[in-house]
């Protein structure tokens, strides 16, 4: 067995490691539609903060108008952890996230006090709830909608209130 000079061995291995490091920073810096050190990150954060403010305002208003309201968030919700919840309570009303394995029965969705919330952000842009209007409408029954989106249309939400709730 012939020994390699340590400097040579180190150079070869270092080249491999640095090459891999470089390739990763070029090709793995964009994952799932989000890019590291993206130029739009300040705007994206501002949009998310705005979404939080707008939804909070609508939900607080809905809860003040009808304290027995229950907010049901759709399966793809990202915002609920960022709202000031205490367990399953938000602004004094009930708030529940529906997940694929914990489906909320349709009868509950159609209860008069339920307010349905769906949002979209750049992270789940492909799930823009506006394209699911028909599905939501069937799930929800007769309703009124509150829609909001940022000027660039990348972030927004849709809220459904039953006509029985909004009439009061």
């Amino acid at each position, binding site marked *: 067995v012939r020994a390699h000079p340590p400097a040579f061995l180190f150079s070869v291995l270092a080249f491999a490691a640095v090459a891999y490091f470089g390739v990763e920073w070029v090709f793995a810096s964009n994952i799932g539609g989000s890019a590291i050190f993206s130029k739009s990150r300040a705007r994206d954060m501002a949009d998310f903060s705005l979404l939080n403010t707008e939804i909070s305002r609508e939900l607080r208003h809905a809860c003040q108008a009808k304290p027995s309201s229950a907010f049901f968030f759709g399966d793809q919700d990202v915002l609920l952890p960022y709202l000031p919840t205490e367990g399953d309570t938000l602004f004094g009303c009930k708030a*529940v*996230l529906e997940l694929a394995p914990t489906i909320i029965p349709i009868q509950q969705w159609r209860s008069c006090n339920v307010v349905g919330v769906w949002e979209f952000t750049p992270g789940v842009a492909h799930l823009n709830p506006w394209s699911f209007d028909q599905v939501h409408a069937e799930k929800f029954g007769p309703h009124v909608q509150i829609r909001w989106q940022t000027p660039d249309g990348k972030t927004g939400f849709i809220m459904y209130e039953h006509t029985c709730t909004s009439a009061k």
Partner: protein
Amino acid sequence: MNFSVKKLRYPLFAISAGLFVWICAASNRLTFPYPWNDESMFFLPADWWARYGNLSPLNVNAPNGIFWVPDGFTVWMGTALRLFGENIQTARGVCEVTVATSVVIFAFAFRRLTGSGWYGLLPTLLLLTPPIIFASNMVRMEAPISLLLAGAILLHSFNLRVGALSFLILGILFHPAPLFAAMGYAAVCASLMIMRRRNDRPHWSEWILLAIVVALFCAEFIRIADHFELFKAHMAVQANRKLEVSLVSKLKKPQALLLLLGTAATGVTLAYRRRLFGFLKSLDALPVAVMGLGLMLYGVLGGEMSYNIYSLSIGPACVFTYIVTSLLERNQAAIQ
């Protein structure tokens, strides 16, 4: 003075590596990745645990518990939230610090395994990459699992193999991602012990660690047995979701190519070591490579972007450590 600076060089590098990951993660908070529904799915049950101390989170409509994923993350993150504040910012901070700490531990483990600071630096470089930063910014189980993996490799570097295996098995209580790594590691270590017929008695503390992990597993199994129908229903939803993407499309991804390359490189290195040192000695450093390949395999089969930390960073770093260690041993043998 000069001596102490030299001694501090590597620890400074390791800590800087951790800081680098933490600073990059903090600079890309909420944008790499964007907030996504997985965080709600995992944060809300943890928040419930922190507030009420039970595993029946009504905030996700699960009065009888969640069974699509083990409860490790809920309990771990719930405890952290209880200690540091019940909000998502705390959860994100905990995940960032956990991944950064794991990078520091990996760096020390790699130095021990390669036996040299300069060579330990090289596999650590593979961890200073976007998938690690991506994982730091997710409120998901990749953070505690990366810490457990780092702990496992560090224990392995001290030849505490039962302890290392305990850490890998504990990881499965957070997510099945370390499953193949634990199986592969256990198989290679057990084979080594049997073939050598040596009395490599594990340290007593390793047995205690293993006993604790087994007890935690028993608790989880009892909970599953108590809610078996719900477990089946939740797992059916999970299985359907996983099967939505075909295996063929997963195998067409670069992660699969990397797994193939890693397996080939490990095979060639193993054959080479066998020629140099004989069969038994050739298996010495193999557990680390098997651990890495197991993680990469799960990343490929799982096919989700959150698994890139395994298939693009930690897995390749482990395989690279194996190759570096082998070449250094070869060189050492040649010099002697």
